[in-house]
Every structure is written in C-alpha cells, then in structure tokens.
C-alpha cells in the first residue's frame, strides 16, 4: 500500500468530521464528528511515521491523541449531562439563553 491511500482516507475522514460538526445540531452528533477529525489526524500521524522508517514520534502522538480524545469526551459528556438536566434537550440550537 502506498502512503497516498492513507492520506486520502485521512482527508476524507477529516472533511466528514468537519462537515458533521458544522451541520449537526445534536451535541452528541457533533462529538462524533470531532472524534472523526481527531482520528483523521491520528491516522495521518501513523501513516507518515510508517513510511518514514517507523519514526517513533508519530506513533507516540497517535497514542496521545487517543488518550486525549477520551478525556475530552468525558468532559464534554459531563457538560452535556448538566445541560440535559436543565434544558431537557441537547440540541445546540435550543440551548440559547445567552443572547447574541
């Protein structure tokens, strides 16, 4: 397999993630989009490091991305729970008490 294939898959994942984040109103949906973007970057890192003589930095970065994605999801879900308790919805277009 060539490097290009991985990069194209990474790009597609990233764009799908960005598209999801920009179009979804459901906060969980947006979180899923964010996961896609992070994984796209992780895939790029691993691919680059594989084709660069298994350079260790990329692998380490990918592992940290996985860990931090989990940490971020925990914080985001905690915030969503607090939101759900007060607003009874998690749609970002309905949670609007702060004015423009």
């Amino acid at each position, binding site marked *: 397999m060539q490097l290009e294939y991985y*990069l194209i898959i*990474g790009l597609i994942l*990233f764009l799908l*993630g*960005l598209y999801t*984040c920009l179009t979804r109103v459901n*906060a969980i949906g*947006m*979180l899923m*989009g*964010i996961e896609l*973007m*992070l994984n*796209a*970057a*992780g895939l*790029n*890192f691993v*691919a*680059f*490091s594989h084709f*660069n003589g298994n*350079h260790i*930095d*990329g692998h*380490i*970065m990918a592992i*940290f*991305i996985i860990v*931090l994605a989990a*940490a*971020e999801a925990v*914080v*985001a879900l*905690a*915030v*969503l729970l*607090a*939101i759900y308790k*007060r*607003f009874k919805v998690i749609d*970002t277009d309905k*949670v*609007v*008490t*702060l*004015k423009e």
Partner: protein
Amino acid sequence: MPNLASMSFFIPELILSAVALILFIFALVSDKAGKKGEYASVIAIAGLLASAVFVLKNFNIGSPPLFWGLLVLDKPAAFFKEIFIITALIVIIFSQRSNELRAGANDSAEYYSLLVGSVLGMNLLASANNLLMIYLALEFVSLMSFILVGFARGSSRSSEAALKYVLYGAVASGVFLYGASLYYGLTGTLDIKSFLTISPSPHLTISLAGLFILAGFLYKIAAVPMHAWCPDAYEGAPTPITAFLSVAPKAAGFAVLMRVFSAAGDGFNWPLIIAVISAATMTFGNLAAIPQTNVKRLLAYSSIAHAGYLLMGVASGTPRGAEAVYFYFAAYLVMNLGAFLVVQIIANTSPPLMGGDIGEGGRESLAAYKGLGRRGASGAILGITMTIFLLSLTGIPPFVGFIGKFYIFAAVMDAKLYWLAFIGIANSVVSLYYYMRIVKTIFFDEPADAVQPAFSSRRLAAILGVLSFATIFIGLYWQWLSNIVAAVIA
C-alpha cells in the same frame, strides 16, 4: 538535556502538580464544611507563590532545552509564567468572595485544584518547543477551562457557556491536530524549529499545515475567525473565571504563537497573515461591543479587540514588537482584572442595583450601573475605579493602558505597517465610544432607586484598591516595567 537532569529546572511545574493533587485529596478527606474553600484557597495561594519564586530563580540560566528538547526554559517563558501565576493569585482572591461560586460551595476545593491545574498547563504551553508538547498543554488548559466555565452547576448560563466552549474547543483542536499531522509528514519531526528548514518553499501543503496550526492558537486567544465561543463563554462563566480566561489563557496562546511564529521566520508571509487577522480581530471586537447592554459581554468583546491590538505587536515581527506585547500583557492584566472585579462587586451587592432588568444576567446589565456614582460613598468609589479601568483600556494617559498602546503602535510604525497602525488608531477611537457610554451611565444617569452598594468584603475592596493604584502608578512610572521587559528580550 536528559530527563533526570531536567527535573531540577522543572521545580515550578512540579510544585503546581503537587498542589493540584493535594487539593483534590483535600477535597475528598476534609470535613470542614463551610471552611473548606477558604483552606483550599490558602493552599493554592501558597503553592502558586512557591512556584513563582522558583520561576524567578530560573530566570537567568540561559535557555536550556529540557526533556530532550520538548520544553525550553527561556526568559519569555519565565515572564509569561509569572503573568499566569499573578493572574491566578488575584483570581483566587476574587473567587473567595464570589456569590456565584459560593452557590456550589461544597466543591470549592476542586475549583482551586482546577485553577492551579490550568496554571500548570499554561506554564507548559509557554515553554513548549515541540508540537506534541504544545498539543498536550493546549488540551490541558482547554479541559481545565471547560470545567471552570461550567463550574456554577446551579446556573443554566454557566452550563450553556461550557457547552459552547467545549464543542468549539474540540473542533479547534481537531483542526490544529490535522495541521500538525501534515507538518509532521512534511518535515519528519515534531520540533517547531523545522519550520525554518521548510519555510523558503511556500508550498501549498505547508501553508495549509501552518494555517491549521495557527487556527488552534487563534482559538486560544479568541481572534477572528476563531472568536465565536468567546462572548458566550465569557458571559455565562462565573465572573472570576471570566476574568481569569480573559488574561491567562490568552497570554498562554500568545506565548506559544510567538514561539512558533519566530521559529517560522518570514516564510509563507506569516507577518502579513497575522497583520490581516489583527486588523479583522480588533475591528470586529470593537464594532460588536457597541450595541451590548450586558457589561460582562461588552468586556468580552473588548477582550477580543485587545487580542487584536496585541496581534499588531506580533505582526511587526521585530524584537521591539515582542517587547511591546510583553509590556501590554502586564498592563492588560491589571486593568482588565480590575474591570471584571467591579462587575463582580456590582453583581454580588445586595440588594441588587437594578432598574427593572431582572433575570439571571440582569445584575450585570448596564441598567444596574445607572447613576452608580451617585449612590453614596461606596457607589462613588466603584464608579471612579471603573472609570479608571475603562479609560486605561481605551488607552488614555496617564493610565497604564496608554503606555502599553504607545509601545505597540511604536513597534508597528517601526516595522512600516502604516495601514495597520491607522486601523489600530481608528479602532481606539471606536472603543472610546462604548467605554465612555458606561462612564456616562455611571455618572450622568439618574439612579433608579436609592439603594447603596455595600462592600460586602474587605478583601475585594483591598484588591480593587491595589489594581486601580497599579493602573495609575505604572501609567506614571513605567520605566521599571519596561526595564523588566527589556531584560526578557535581551
């Protein structure tokens, strides 16, 4: 430098990590109901002071690369670390007497732990010299800030602010990471110094990688086009946290932006990109601030505008510009924290000062400031100090904001960016309008009733005095501060 040898230069961060963990344990084991927050804040203050001392001790040791070059301990990093620590110390005093935070008093030890943790993250960010470290530190600061913004769990505004902040922050870090992965692919390393090796070839992919990485930093400093979270997050967050966010993480963002920026040289037109972003940021911030009726939200837009002014210094790309940015941050710290402190005191005073606009955010509305200067002695003091801070934020002599702006404009003129200086001056005039509208409301509008604000806490009154004194004093005698800043550059 190998890991064990680096440890002796890493003491400030080690102290902060220890204090953050101690506070978490303290929160679990202590049964001092009611007094818990007070003790926790004292532990946090002691830890921050100890850390500040060790940062100072390491000020003059050159710039050793620590942990195999992941961190670098140079003078700008030390300067920014002191800024974070001083901000955190002042904000801890705000937090001790904040009604919003006391509403959930049971977890106040965790609150201080998170605050110390975020200072730790910012310290790492200020000295990070590698994209892995930058990413970790950036996320560290972000995660702490998300929780702090949503800390007032009883308030729907706070939760909503945290939701917007968290979603926006996660997207920004995704974009940053994708840029970092492209950078890694092009250079084969995560060291930011490699920007120099590739910068002579303004290739599309490397420009894209640079822009994506820049987006992550712009999000941290709330610059256009990554500013959208800022007004909502600042308005909904508890006021001490708003004050903290408007100074410390912004300074951290600038620290890392300037480090990467100076490593990149002037390949792919960074100075021009930053100059355009700077012009857009200050224009947007100032224009959007004009119609605001909530003072906290108005100050949020004003902080966006100030990020624009600070970016002017970065755009000049000279040591003089960097010096101006450092000076401005010291000035911005005292005047901006002071303005938010007045907002907090007004919002906490009981009975509330309001002209009919009642609601969760009503205590921060401009209506509450109507005739503040005529509401007895304490009202007059609050009105006068607020005026001092606002005049200083506008950049009017003899206050410290004027000196800061003077240095920034001098640096921009020096770099021959005349159009940028012109936009900056036009923006200062615009900002005069909305700052003066608050002053007019305070002194020339009729108060709605005869309620007089009471200083519920001597501590807040004292820190208010210190901040307003510093705003005037440094405005008159700034030489010592500019000597410090010059030493940072040297």
